[in-house]
């Protein structure tokens, strides 16, 4: 798998809401290679603070060499990214990791994103929309704290011709409650299903267990603390349900993931 380290120019910075931003980066090699569910490591500082790179899912790519990331400001790194103006160069390493497995023809597909977990699902949706007719249906379910975090993203999915159901914590758009509630009422219809999810751990856990129960295909994109993103530091582990024959007790999320078959994960 080829990946690159490059200095990518920020071509555009969009402020989706107060603390959610979308950066468009010019990095043709990465745009060309990236597959949905893969991520990039950004140097989110001009100096050494913060010290480590920060991982971000590829939100979408374009044939003219752009890579987008969608992020929420949490701490020093994302603050720095939010403060960058177009023209700034960011050091990027990517694309990295194992992305989503595309669904089999004839399945009903459901993408369930919570918060910034929506980022990689849009890339997946774009890829699926190339062969929309391969799938019985494609549903998108998005959850967030409040309506305004979802509006831009909702219309992005809708432009791909995918119906979007929403759930918000404050009830300001769609279902008042968790996005997982929406899944429950869907999973009965139209088998076989392929679920793809990314978002807060409890959300993904709930979906994973539901899918296990109903024996549905389900992939989840996980997060851990990463130093290198390229499989070198062995820092980014999560426990395997069972050790491998050679005694490995952990997955390395940056290499074995970030996308995993939800059934392979020890949901805590």
């Amino acid at each position, binding site marked *: 798998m080829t990946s690159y380290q490059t200095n990518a120019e920020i071509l555009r910075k969009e402020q989706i809401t107060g603390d959610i931003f979308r950066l468009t980066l010019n990095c043709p090699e990465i745009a060309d290679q990236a597959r949905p569910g893969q991520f990039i490591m950004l140097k989110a500082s001009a100096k*050494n603070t913060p*010290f480590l790179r920060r991982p971000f899912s590829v939100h979408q790519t374009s044939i003219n060499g752009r890579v987008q990331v969608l992020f929420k400001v949490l701490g020093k790194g994302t603050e720095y990214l939010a403060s960058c103006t177009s023209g700034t160069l960011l050091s990027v*390493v990517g694309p990295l990791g194992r992305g989503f497995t595309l669904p089999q023809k004839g399945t009903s597909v459901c993408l369930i994103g919570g918060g910034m977990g929506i980022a990689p699902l849009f890339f997946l949706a774009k890829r699926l929309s190339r062969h929309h007719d391969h799938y019985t249906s494609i549903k998108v379910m998005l959850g967030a704290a409040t309506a305004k975090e979802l509006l831009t993203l909702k219309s992005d999915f809708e432009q791909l011709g995918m119906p979007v159901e929403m759930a918000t914590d404050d009830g300001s758009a769609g279902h008042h409650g968790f996005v997982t509630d929406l899944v429950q009422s869907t999973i009965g219809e139209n088998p076989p299903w392929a679920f793809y999810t990314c978002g807060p751990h409890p959300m993904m856990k709930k979906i994973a267990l539901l899918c296990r129960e109903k024996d549905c295909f389900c992939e989840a994109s996980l997060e*851990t603390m990463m130093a*290198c993103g390229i*499989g070198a*530091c062995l820092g980014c*582990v999560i426990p395997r349900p069972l050790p491998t024959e050679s005694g*490995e007790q*952990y997955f390395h999320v940056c290499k074995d993931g970030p996308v995993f078959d939800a059934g392979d994960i020890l949901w805590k």
Partner: protein
Amino acid sequence: MEIGKPKLKVQLGSIQLKNPVMTASGTFGYGNEFTNYVNLHHLGGIVVKGISLLPRPGNPPPRIVETEGGMLNAIGLENVGVLAFINDKMPFLKEAGTEVIVNILGDTVDEYAEIANKLNNIKGISAIEVNISCPNVKKGGVAFGADPKMVSAVTRAVKDNTNLPVIMKLSPNVTDITATAMAAEQAGADAVSLINTLMAMAIDSETRRPRLANIIGGLSGPAIKPVALRMVWQVAKTVKIPVIGIGGIMNTEDALEFLIAGATAIEVGTANLINPAITGEIVQGISDYLSAHRLESVQEIIGSLITE
């Protein structure tokens, strides 16, 4: 006056490196992870992730924490074990076009001896680097590297079981690093490398829990460079065998400081995680520095610190 391309070759005991820039164990995987970013052929050497007799799963997560100017790691020496290393990793490494140095670790002196023995006749290995910052299970978990006597014992055990040059990698968590360096030298080590990480800790004040599952981890990165540089200087003044400088090297300038302090070669660690191409850039940077200063060879700067 025209000067040709500066000479970068350095000699580490019986092995010659094409330049003094190597990678530090645990930060460069088994080399293959970096082929997208740096031409391994350009490096002085690759030191691989520490290898034990049997595979080790490592510590539970979280294993890494970011700190000011550095990071803590408590990987817990996860590795594939010596046999899988030989079978799965060496085929790639021996074609990498650079010196391959195998970092080893053990719980007992005998274990070190046995790994050394297993690696002895494997083609493509240039040297062994011995990580003695691990706890000696027979001595209540005190690190081998904490005590000159244990350093001697491990050095001898490894030397007795290999024909390869042996580099003892010293722990900085000691009162007097020249004492452990001398112990290694007297016991027959061909070189010493230093420093390994500083024992350290981080706490989340909101949860009041340690940030590492292992509680304690090793501090690396530019934060520790001044300590590493001091130790390298002290050791280089004390021993006659070559010294390899490690600790917080992020760029050419840092690498030069270690060479000037007396290191014959350097290992780049944490910087690989942040800039996977950094080692190649440092090789070029050292060459440029020598040209700019009209020096013919890197030898001219090694140990050249002017202290009046």
